């Protein structure tokens, strides 16, 4: 990152974002996503037996079949993510409220999937800004869900206006605790946060297995589950069933804005970023690197904890084993794609949320497994992280400035 000039502090967030965005080269990001999607399409076509049958007929019919297969797959993905326009039109024409809700449900369901991505993406992005690699978002999500759901069912007699914030806060605190341990170890002993957060992930999984079977189990259930949370802790849903869209999405946007304010509008945030971009300079400038490292991991953990609490308070209303299914790991790719900027995180969270939701109905309609989304994410991540590949493929000019997407402290801290 270039040294901050005084007048830059006066710029608004959009300008900062745009500056970093354009410096990183919009073309590369676009081409990275495009290439990822293209290769995904090739993979889908290459794994469809009908395509090979068509190739037996003639080369061009094979190519045509491959092309239509890929188009159909992505068509199903998009329809699954935003809804079928014809159905929506027909539903509005009929005027039946339930039909309308069903038709527009895919779009809102995508936003539901986006919400935990925003929280978890902010968690990883905040870590990157401070030069820390938080691979532990997944474990922090689990702990946040555990503490959030506990506050949801174990504290009776509160009105929603108090119960909801308390439960969310409990989730954040649980995640923060899970971030605090690696942060403290990193700051005090130099134990690398990548390894410690991976280990903390697995401790969190085991702990939640045990809690769900034992202390937090619902006595009326045979399988390990927690009791239902009280209605006063449920995040209000804005529409009737089947739409599950709840206010968590707006909380996520608010938190993203707060993270932006913290990072770019406060001295404190500037110090955090300074620790990230040049630890030695920060130390020389009198910033307490130790405390900033711990604080950053606590905040990152808290954000991921919110993702967990959001899921149990807004969607599941209870905790079941293995509920998160990879939000934490996906968010690493997401944060990098979003240039570790809150606005970028929100945008890429939308992309990931729509992909994830679309993939589910894609699997139902055209039989392509949802795992194609992971492949897309891995490809996009690789191309974003190594722009030189994209430049080589598309014969782009090499820029003068450094293209490192993230500056991390050395392996040994």
């Amino acid at each position, binding site marked *: 990152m270039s040294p901050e000039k005084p007048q830059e502090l006066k710029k608004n967030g959009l300008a900062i974002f745009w500056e970093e965005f354009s410096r990183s080269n919009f073309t590369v990001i676009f081409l990275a996503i495009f290439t990822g999607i293209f290769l995904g399409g090739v993979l889908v076509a290459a794994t469809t037996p009908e395509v090979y049958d068509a190739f037996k007929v003639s080369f061009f019919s094979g190519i045509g079949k491959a092309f239509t297969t890929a188009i159909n797959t992505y068509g199903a993905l998009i329809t699954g993510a935003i809804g079928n326009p014809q159905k929506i039109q027909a539903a509005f024409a009929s005027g039946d409220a339930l039909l309308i809700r069903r038709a527009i449900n895919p779009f809102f369901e995508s936003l539901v999937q986006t919400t935990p991505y925003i929280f978890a993406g902010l968690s990883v992005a905040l870590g990157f800004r401070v030069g820390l690699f938080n691979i532990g978002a997944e474990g922090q999500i689990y702990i946040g869900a555990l503490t959030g759901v506990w506050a949801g069912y174990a504290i009776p007699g509160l009105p929603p206006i108090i119960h909801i914030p308390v439960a969310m806060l409990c989730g954040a605190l649980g995640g923060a605790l899970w971030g605090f341990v690696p942060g403290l170890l990193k700051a005090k002993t130099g134990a690398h946060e990548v390894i*410690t957060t991976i280990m903390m992930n*697995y*401790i969190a999984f085991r702990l939640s297995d045990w809690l769900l079977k034992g202390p937090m189990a619902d006595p009326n259930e045979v399988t390990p589950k927690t009791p239902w949370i009280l209605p006063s802790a449920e995040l209000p849903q804005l529409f009737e069933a089947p739409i599950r869209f709840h206010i968590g999405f707006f909380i996520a946007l608010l938190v993203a804005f707060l993270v932006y304010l913290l990072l770019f509008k406060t001295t404190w945030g500037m110090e955090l970023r300074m620790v990230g971009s040049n630890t030695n300079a920060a130390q020389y400038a009198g910033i307490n690197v130790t405390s900033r490292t711990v604080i950053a991991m606590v905040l990152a953990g808290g954000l991921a904890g919110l993702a967990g609490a959001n899921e149990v308070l807004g969607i599941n209303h209870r905790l079941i084993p293995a509920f998160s299914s990879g939000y934490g790991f996906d968010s*690493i790719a997401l944060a990098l794609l979003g240039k570790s900027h809150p606005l970028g995180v929100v945008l890429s969270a939308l992309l990931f949320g729509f992909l994830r939701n679309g993939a589910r109905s894609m699997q139902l309609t055209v039989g392509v497994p949802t*795992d194609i989304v992971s492949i897309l994410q891995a490809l996009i991540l690789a191309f974003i*992280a*190594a722009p030189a*590949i994209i430049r080589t493929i598309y014969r782009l000019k090499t820029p003068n400035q450094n293209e490192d997407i993230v500056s*991390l402290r*050395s392996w040994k801290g």
Partner: protein
Amino acid sequence: MTISIDTTHAATSKGMRARERRRRLIMGGIFLGAALFIWFVFVANITPGAVTRFLMNPGGASTETADWVFSSGFALNAIAGVLALLGVFQVVRGFGKLTNGILAAVAILFLFGFLTWATSGGQTNLAGLLRVMVVRAVPLTLGALSGILCERSGVVNIGIEGMMLTGAFVSTVFASLSDNLWIGMLSGIIAGGVMGLIHAVLSIKYKINQIISGTVINIFATGITSYLSSKFLQKTAYQFLNEPGMFPQVEIPILSKIPFIGPILFHHNIYVYAMIILVFFLTFMLFKTRWGLRVRAVGEHPKAADTLGINVFKTRYMAVILGGMMAGFAGTYFTLGSSGRFDEVMTAGRGFIGLAAMIFGNYNPIGSMGAGLLFGFFDSLSVKASLLQVPLPSEFLGMVPYLATIIVLAGVVGKGHIPAADGEPYEKE
């Protein structure tokens, strides 16, 4: 300038002596703590006169060994006494270079004490427990060896999990198609090598952050194996792709007849023997050959190595590809050596425990096998947790490897040796 260097040097050696002293005291404290723990927790919680009965024959063994029955209280007191003596000696004099070995002995004694206590008044199949421990250690140790190959050359590899998964998948398909386990194994190794090559290209050629590169490998491998598996392998029409078969158990003549030890160590399929051979082979290669010296030089000080005419890039490429092949081999264990079929995400985090075993074993093959066996022991114990006489949730036993790794990383028992250039891309000038 000269003066400042001198003072730093003096300060370093002084600091080192202080650190050594601190380490000596902490170690002694751990030994004494283990002794006290046995006295106050284990001995205090057994019924007087209770006996511990260990069964000494794993299921299906061809030898017969009599059960081992002894007084729990006496055994525990004896173990605690030995630990206390070791602790006192460590605090007063210190074992010096032997400290790590003594620590391992203390850990084994302590675990034996734990088992004695947990079995007191009942019985445990000790031989079965240890046999499963050896089996469970295989993927962890092989994963650790993969990590060692990469990291000794200066490339961090957190993609072991993904490389393993790829090896597992590819070996299943090729073994099923060719109806030949060796072809399956070879294909898994090659597939792991290809993943290693991708990791190498991304992190050595394109110099992207090695953690990110490893993450790409993990996400991609999970995605593509699950994709292909649910598209083909799990479908009835393609079931023939998921029937690779398994390597049979090979009984080593004479050695397998040794009472107790024979069935535990010398009656397995080839993966256990391969693990033991590879550990010693890699130790020899790394520390006794010119190739090993080059790999380590590149991992410690690439610039110096380059100056001496070692091709840093080539050495790293080779090490990372070999590391990938090792992880691919570890992956084939899951399908060809353990379950005989491929299931989605079947490695279940073993690659990450392998990474932990590497750190625990201080980037050393033999140490990593020790760590792999230790973690394998807890794995094996957590399966049998319900059979023990004490209520101990299997989840907590499952946590031990991760907690232990965090403790090691935090430097409580002394800082390990991380290759100096680990994780840093090399820029040729």
